[in-house]
């Protein structure tokens, strides 16, 4: 098993100064250390406001961490090296609905990504887009569709296509299933599992839904107030949580599951 992404001592401080005389409010993320292996899924769980989304942004370069190192596939990424980072670590946003441009076709959304990041000519780009659309379970004709013509599940697939089109090594997904309905959610889970197996992607999955976390992840990382408080193999963390926050989070989920099985008798 090779380490795909290694994060060492990542620290990001965010300060807000509201008025002239008050002390600035400070949120500190980190220090964060973790590693993700090829073809494995790391899930990040935690309460609202524990810095999960901020971590995702720091990984893909949305915010610049003050300190720390990100090593991708054995090579250290410099903080300002946008090119490799954009290509190899891709982000799927929380609301893919709002993350797609409604005024242009799906084809040109994907084309834009290729134009900015690769040196393919027009013909190759078109071929690549078609190939990616098919890979995520859409049709070639969807090239000419607009956002509003697609259903929620299909929009989520487009978001996934946009992440996959550059053949990334790591995908960071911030609540990719939160806005989806149960049956469509299962489809997307299946799709992501398939793609991970085919391409050997490392997958960082940020979520509230512990049922799905338990199902798809290999290891889990629990965050609280910007720090990692616990991490380990999924089963280990779920069965023997060592910190109180984790235990609360997990037991409240399994309370509901237990009640369900009580109903079944």
């Amino acid at each position, binding site marked *: 098993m090779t380490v795909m992404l290694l994060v060492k001592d990542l620290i990001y401080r965010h300060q807000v100064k509201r008025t002239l005389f008050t002390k600035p409010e400070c949120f500190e993320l980190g220090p964060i250390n973790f590693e993700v292996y090829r073809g494995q899924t790391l899930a990040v769980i935690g309460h609202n406001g524990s810095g999960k989304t901020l971590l995702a942004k720091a990984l893909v370069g949305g915010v610049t961490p003050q300190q720390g190192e990100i090593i991708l596939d054995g090579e250290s990424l410099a903080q300002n090296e946008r090119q490799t980072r954009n290509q190899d670590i891709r982000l799927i946003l929380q609301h893919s609905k709002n993350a797609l441009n409604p005024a242009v076709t799906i084809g040109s959304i994907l084309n834009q990504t290729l134009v900015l990041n690769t040196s393919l000519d027009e013909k190759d780009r078109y071929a690549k887009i078609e190939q990616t659309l098919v890979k995520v379970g859409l049709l070639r004709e969807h090239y000419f569709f607009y956002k509003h013509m697609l259903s929620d599940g299909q929009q989520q697939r487009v978001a996934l296509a946009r992440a996959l089109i550059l053949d990334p090594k790591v995908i960071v997904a911030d609540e990719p299933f939160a806005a989806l309905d*149960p049956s469509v959610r299962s489809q997307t889970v299946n799709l992501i599992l398939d793609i991970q197996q085919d391409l050997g992607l490392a997958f960082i999955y940020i979520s*509230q839904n512990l*049922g799905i976390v338990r199902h798809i992840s290999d290891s889990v990382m629990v965050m609280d107030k910007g720090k990692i408080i616990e991490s380990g193999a999924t089963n280990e963390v779920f069965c023997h949580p060592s910190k109180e926050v984790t235990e609360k989070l997990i037991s409240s989920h399994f309370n509901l599951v237990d009640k369900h099985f009580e109903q079944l008798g």
Partner: protein
Amino acid sequence: MPLLDIKNLTLEIESGSEKVKALDKVSLVVNEGEIRALVGESGSGKSLIVRAIIGAIPDHWKITADRLTWKGQNLLSMSQEKRRVIMRREIAVVFQDPTSSLDPLVTLGEQLEESIPAEFVVKGNYWQRKKQKREITISLLHKVGIKEHDACMKRFPHEIPSDITQKFMIAMALVSEPEILIADDPTRSMESTTKNQILKLLTRLNETKNLAILFVSHDLLAISSMSHAMTVLYCGQTVESGKVKHLLRRPLHPYTKALLDSAPSFQVNLPPKSHLTTLDGTIPTLQHLPIGCRLGPRCPSARKECVKVPESRNIQNHSYSCHFPLHMPTSGQGQAKEQTDQHVSAKEHAGASEKEAYVKFNEDIDGPPT
């Protein structure tokens, strides 16, 4: 007598030149002190039902129903004033998105004080009433589990986290001491600890105050842990309805089964990273509804009979509308075929043998039928 009784509610929306049935013969009953869950995906018309109940439907949408009654009074033929009084005092609604359904320009405390009915503050002189209102507000906030009432009341909706706004919305709904609480997706995108708190709060209200709750959601985990009965909605049609216990144990409609399968937590022997069972395709849009059973194109067991709308059949308070119900291999399917061949009412045919089979199924849950 049921509190809220809806029978064959149909809502027609004009889209372009043609009329679309956004709700097609939906039936729903909420009894006194019952928690009924209304399950369905987005676009299945859950929120439309809520809007139809509270009367927030635009005039140009055509609404027809055999029954839409509140404690025996017909809500549709009622005068606006009378209906408003009922809405104000007896039915309370918690809307989907708490932060956007509160007034952003007024502090939370003021909003809650304003919604206290005048008849609750009649004691003493008028200058004492402000204090009384404040006391009612604080006790309500404590009741729903907001401990720092001062901090909450002085703030504006955007300044507090969404789970507290949700609790606040529940407090606001409870202020008039209603008999039924309609909660439209109250646990959406919440972490499990907060979700648990809200569910516990609702269960406690149901137990202590005998408050009936119509719990609209697609979170099956939440539903199965607290509700007594549930109604499953697909594309504006009720597909199955009955006790939660029965539905979970033996879903008769393929869609209900698909919904249950979609939650990985419900499956005991699911190996990690394996495929989840799921239905193909997505819920159709209102403009492209299939004829007959609306699940038809996605249903794994669909046959040519499914182009007719299946009639709703009722066995022991468990009603379903499907030509080929699951778990009824011998009786159900044969009956259904006869029904379509001879155009006989299904109800006559859902007779002895089918009922027998069903009773047998549920004996181990309920004990022998009396």
